[in-house]
């Protein structure tokens, strides 16, 4: 692994929601700051910057990850998905996003991006989760607005729709 010098900015390149992106970052720059302030992708939110709240969750190489615990330079060469990449096209929502809207599974929407990113991957791997499984899985996210009840309802509903019309994913 090559060493990075602390006092210099380094070129970071990765694939973001299917498109190549690049910008410079000091080695200490967090991936959250890089996404939000260098690349202007402000959909990923920062709730704690210490790995507990889950608001910053994104997908790195197919695995959900806390962007606040990741350095931008660590993402070099990776494939990253964020909330901006979930909708199939502008003006249309994915099945999961649409279920969130119908069930009022968001209020302020600050925690939502992280929860969507976690669930999006999870529902692809688990097509028929039970409420108990979803509760366990979503235990890594904090939401202060909804009380979680509508989030669970939306996730169960989305799983059902995806089972019935998988092409809609």
């Amino acid at each position, binding site marked *: 692994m090559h060493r990075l010098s602390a006092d210099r900015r380094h070129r970071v390149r990765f694939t973001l929601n299917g498109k190549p992106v690049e910008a410079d970052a000091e080695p200490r720059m967090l991936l959250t700051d890089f996404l939000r302030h260098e690349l202007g992708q*402000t959909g990923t939110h920062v709730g704690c910057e210490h790995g507990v709240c889950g608001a910053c969750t994104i997908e790195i190489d197919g695995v959900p990850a806390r962007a606040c615990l990741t350095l931008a330079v660590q993402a070099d060469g990776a494939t990253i998905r964020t909330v901006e990449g979930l909708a199939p096209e502008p003006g249309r929502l994915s099945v999961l996003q649409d279920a969130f809207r119908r069930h009022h599974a968001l209020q302020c929407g600050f925690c939502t991006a992280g929860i969507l990113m976690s669930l999006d991957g999870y529902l692809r791997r688990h097509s028929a989760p039970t409420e108990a499984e979803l509760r366990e899985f979503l235990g890594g996210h904090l*939401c202060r*607005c909804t009380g979680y009840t509508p989030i669970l309802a939306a996730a169960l509903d989305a799983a059902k729709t995806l089972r019935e019309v998988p092409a809609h994913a």
Partner: protein
Amino acid sequence: MSELPTSWCGQSVERVEDAALLTGRGRFIDDLGVRPGTLHAAILRSPHAHAKIVAIRADAARALPGVAAVILAEDVTALPASLVVGVKAPIECWPIATDRVRYVGEPVAVVVAASRYIAEDALDLIEVDYQTLPAVVDPLAALDGTQPILHDGLRSNLASERRFRYGDPERAFAEATHRIAVTIKYPRNSCTPMETYGLIAEYDAGEDAYDVTANFMGPFSLHAVMARALKVPGNRFRLRTPPDSGGSFGVKQGVFPYIVLMGIAARVAGRPVKWVEDRLEHLAASVSATNRVTTLRAAVDADGRVRALDWNQIEDVGAHIRAPEPATLYRMHGNLGGAYDIRNIAVRNRVVLTNKAPTGLNRGFGGPQVYYALERLMQRIAVILKLDPADVIRRNLVPSGAFPYRTATGAIYDSGDYPLAFEKALTDGGYAALRQRQAEARAQGRLYGIGMTAAIEPSVSNMGYITTVLTPEERRKAGPKNGAQATATIALDPVGSVSVHVSSVPQGQGHRTVLSQIVADALGLKPSDVRVVAELDTGRDAWSIASGNYSSRFAAAVGGAAHLAAEKIKAKLAKIAAAQLNVPPEEIEFAGGRARARGNPDNNVAFGRLAATSHWSPGLVPEENQALRETVFWSPPQLTPPSENDEINSSLCHGFIFDFCGVEIDRVTGALRIDKYVTMHDCGRILHPGMVEGQITGGFAHAVGAALYEEYSYGPDGSFQTGTFADYLVPTTMEVPTPVILHIETPSPFTPLGTKGVGEGNCMSTPVCLANAAADALGASDIDLPLTPAKLAALFHPAEAAPPATVRPQPVKTGKGRALQGQGQAQANAAPADVWRMLLDPKTLEAIIPGCHGVEKLSDTHFRADVTLGVGPVTGRYRADIKLSDLDEPKAVTLSGTVTGALGDAKGAGHITLTPTDTGGALLAYEYDAEIGGKVASIGGRLLDGAAKIVIRQFFEALARHTGGPARTGLFARLFGRGA
């Protein structure tokens, strides 16, 4: 065209807010662009709860490349005035510590720099000399006269005291069959919105004007406080809010001191300044609810009927009385009798100052504290009189048909049918079955309890209730304060489409959606025809002091104002339509996107065409009928100032809640499981059932957190101990069950739409409902929150034997900080004598101490080192002062000393022994015992322990490397016989 007028209100339409929020296109404060040249601020905060600031040296910080300015107290006190304090006392409240720090996290200096990273680097370079003072932590101790006084202007830490008397409480107590009392200590907690504070501040020297965008939530009465502190008239302090805000629950009221502070920073730096609070700052120093000690006594008849209450409340507002405090203590004043018909009430209210963060708005605002006392008392009455708690509640409820009901303390309960809602909840919620379930569980020896609560949820605060803290005399001098101006503006544009603006500053509550429903209903349109803007700009929009999003005022007050504005513009449009359709205006109705003659729907005009008339053909419309833009200010007449006898209608609307629940407590661990929770609400007319549901489930989750997990915990030295989300436990999907929600609807006669607030009720009712259930399960009489397993287990497990005394080295404990202990061993590839030399050589130490910037040898046994250490999320620079003793060359040595830095301090001792190994190396064994204080202590034992272990392991790893062993960590296992 539909003949039936559709009512959009009452339907759970999809929210207009959601598409953007779901796709990452929200516009929160940190998502907004800034002007080129904007600087980024970081705040140096006090590591001490109470200390004198002796000196601050900021030259090194100022010299760091990228730093534009360092703002210290003198910059702040030089120009503006202190923030106004709500009680009559000679106290100042600045947004930065001046002579003393009074709580952990209090701002001490602000650095503005080219980036936040550089600004935080510079914080490390500021040196502050503190002279620590004893801290005042316990609100009762704060009153006993033995503690230091926090503010020079005061003779004690009692900032305000008032007594009130309504009816004839003395007589009721004298005549009562029973006198029953509870004493409760309500803890501190906070609703911690997921988005922290943030703002962008700019100062225009040419106009002497400030322009700040902040995720402030109101009340905008604080605009006057901020403008005054910045010493400009209100029109030179333009305050704007971003389109989206990531939750608030009251908390974002507390950004206002930072608006002043960063306004000054922008002025000093001569450039715009952006500041986004981080989570550690938020937990330590934003705002929390008050902690309160209450003794509540009741005069009770033999059948459980309560004749009188005697409240004695001691409110801990922290280090400053920051506006609008002591409002928490007075918001419930009108409804201190709860849902009950109690005519005799005595009150003694005291406000004390302690070395904790200042308090402020928080969901429930005063309700959790009041209902915890009142409803614990009702449960105690049932236990003592051997009654079903449901019977005690039933016998005391304000009767049906009594509305509007004037309480003893002055509130007017607008509408309701409490007995009906109560009985319906018991029936529909399955109370009898729950009792059965409890009996079965108990028969199996399980700890199963049932709790219940009745509560009044006040909404739409009277801006005058806070003045109840003043005597009638003081109020006369200050002039009457009252009312709750709500405002809404409706504009028609040249193509006849409808825009609405309100000053309600939502933080996720879907205001834009509900307003589009309300206005669509009034004008016969679809919600999608109506566009709503809800961000506020005080330089441009209609607003007043009550503007903002608090006291659950939206549905009742703001929704009502929008309805009135729509009716107003509709009346004008009806006149224009009447002229066009040749019918009298009373005959015009609006439906299906058209205005039409009643009874002759073919005689109609499209709404858009009609609405555009006053733009294109003003000549055809008499001036007084021109329909372009209408702004309505609405303040309910019922919200009058406190009377001469201190009666106050503190809120306009009063919803009713009745909750009951079943909980089970684990016999071994003491963990509480919520088995069933039923919550009945009467919040008047419901405009959007989905959102009302969301307010209830959301409030319920907050309440579960407050009841079972959350507490802002302070050590006896005032150190803050719950400074991360790993220590301040917010409940997740695993902890929050789904409650059963029931409703009845009795519309409020005082609001234009019959609505009432609903956002805060469960924060008031649920904590005590769960506590009553726990008390029932355990047969406990005194029970305080949070109901942690340890606390509950202590109520039924015998006390544990004391752990065996620790061995060497002797701890340096003063019993105040957080203790750290550990031991371990490591192997080095050098003989003990060589290792010994290395340990005493500053150059070697410099190379092997993790994060070391330099070691100075002051004598053979005295070293000083400068190090940067990261503990969890907190990284800072520290100065270590280490002395060696008990030297037994080359076998053993004791190290003792102190570590100090901006983020905290530590005292400790360690003992190292060196033993030769068969292979010519040395075995190092060490043990240490330290005590940590300041901000670092707030990040919690788990992280701290882990970090200490890592640092020490790194030290020995580096030492091993230095002794010629291979440096790669992959060989760690070979180097060290056993992990450190």
